[in-house]
């Protein structure tokens, strides 16, 4: 297997672990960790898409010719996605804090007033 494909494998593993955590863990904080893992996997995937061996970052005054330019779009996407991820994680954690205040637990089996 080509060593260059390794980041894609890691990204896929991260997404898989994240989804596993999200589906099978019972603690709200662990659910947030699961969501975060999926997010990291997707971000790693995006960054890897834009990687060029021996590429140069396309900064305005120092832009190389097209073949050696690192693709800037995936990096912009990843940055945006990281910022969005920060907001969602913060919101999720603050919900978890308030749930703990109201229910006195973080166990999803005990937090179930909304059923049916």
């Amino acid at each position, binding site marked *: 297997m080509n060593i260059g494909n390794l980041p894609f494998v890691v990204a896929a593993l991260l997404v898989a672990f994240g989804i596993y955590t999200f589906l099978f863990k019972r603690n709200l904080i662990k659910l947030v960790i699961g969501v975060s893992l*999926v997010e990291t996997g997707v971000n790693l*995937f995006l960054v890897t*898409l834009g990687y060029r061996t021996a590429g140069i970052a396309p900064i305005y*005054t120092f832009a190389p010719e097209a073949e050696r330019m690192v693709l800037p*779009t995936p990096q912009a996407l990843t940055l945006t996605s990281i910022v969005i991820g920060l907001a*969602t994680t913060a919101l999720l954690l603050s919900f978890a804090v308030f749930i703990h205040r109201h229910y006195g637990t973080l166990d999803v089996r005990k937090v179930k007033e*909304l059923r049916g």
Partner: protein
Amino acid sequence: MTALTNHAPVLLIAIPLLGAFAVPLIGKLGRQARNTFVGLIALITAAFAGLLAAHIFGQAGAPSLYVLGGHQGFGIPLPSGLSVPIRIILEVDGMGAFMALITALIMLTGAFFSFSYWKERSGGTLFYSLLMLLTAGIFGMELTGDMFNFFVFLEITSIAACGLIGFRVWLKTSQEAGFKVMALYTLSGLFVLLAVGLLYGQYGGLNIAYLASALTGSTIDIVALGLLLTGLALKAGAVPLHMWAPDAYGEAPAPMSAVLVANSQASLYGLFRILFTLFGLTISVGALGWILIVLALLTIFVGVTMALIQNDIKRLIAYSAVSQIGYMLLGVGVGLAVSAAKPDFGFVAMQGGIFHMLNDAACIGLLFFVSGVIIRATGTRDLNRMGGLAHSMKWTSVLFIIGAFALAGVPPFNGFASKFLIYEASFKLSPFLAVIAILSSILLLAVFVKVFQAAFLGAKQEGIGGEVPMGMMVPMVALALVVIVFGLFPGFFVDKIVTPAANALWYGRDAYIGLVLGGG
């Protein structure tokens, strides 16, 4: 006037966004100033949506392009001689303009309803801020021509929507709903982002028109489509991914439940855009159409049966809102299943599904508003503990009947007009589909008879005030008028706005691509 029309797409996003961040500042000046400001922003936004729709439907739904940052020719020239195309594209066609109209209607009535509804409660200023942010996000999803921007706007709506669901931190259940909805929304957003990454990795572009022209239907494309389908069906609340929807609609404040339904519809719009415009006939759409039909039937059936057993009025209406998403999916699914052959009834099904989006937004909005009035008057959400409201609230009970009959598809209200198109067309594909759809509508009527009996009939109860204040009555009457007018003159509206919208999806792929890439 033309300048305003030309800039309407970006202003539709920019004005609510500006409003969202200015509201907390204006709020320092007092309640009156804040309400005036929010009302003004809502009115201006709705006016632009109307202007945009008038422009697009004036040219029979042909797409229109708005380019941000494109005035320097193709791109930004670098000293090394390379020119990098940096621009953001908004592309509006009949379908996008149609969705913008729905959003504007619900946002406007929701904002004005809230002015009276929230009078004596706290958290008002941030509440309006979130509403504006949500509106900006929904408009963005509907008007953008770029997959990544679609994802960003999707996340903006997710965060704002969950803020609206959970901002009442003193309520136990709203926190639970907020966590659940946010976790699932985030997951759905990440599915979409992964799909965007897969498409970018193959074709090196993010523009919907460019991707649509380059798409080959490879295995990776199919994987991306599966991810998009899952993510957007989740965000639209289609069964079996609906478990968040009753919590979200049920726990959000009543006027905002209506806006959340508009948000779900925007995800549905994204799904349709991806199926028809992005993928089109590059993949075998017949099988996909049947997947949508199965999802639709499940959604209709589960939504209605779950609504039947609820005792909480908000949750009951929330489940009926879930079931209505199924009708839209059914209409468009039937259209998609036969879109390779393009028979006439497929187009009728599309018209029905798309028309139902507008009709559903109006009548479910009306029902949520009425539920808010009921909860405010009785102080409870339990149907067994209320009753006799018709004695003191004659007009509200009439409005409830209008909304309920419209949602259940009773003529002459608007729900009948669109559901009839769906029944007719799905019957031609398979009578079984129409039977399930009609049966569920009848069950839905039974559900609302139960609510009406529980809440409005019976002996007069002590301590119930009189009719609702004018500020809440006017938005409800406005929605009821939409329900009645669209029900009485469906032919006119189908011709003027629904057909261009359905055309844009059904035939408009080449025009959509051609406008961006030239040629076409």
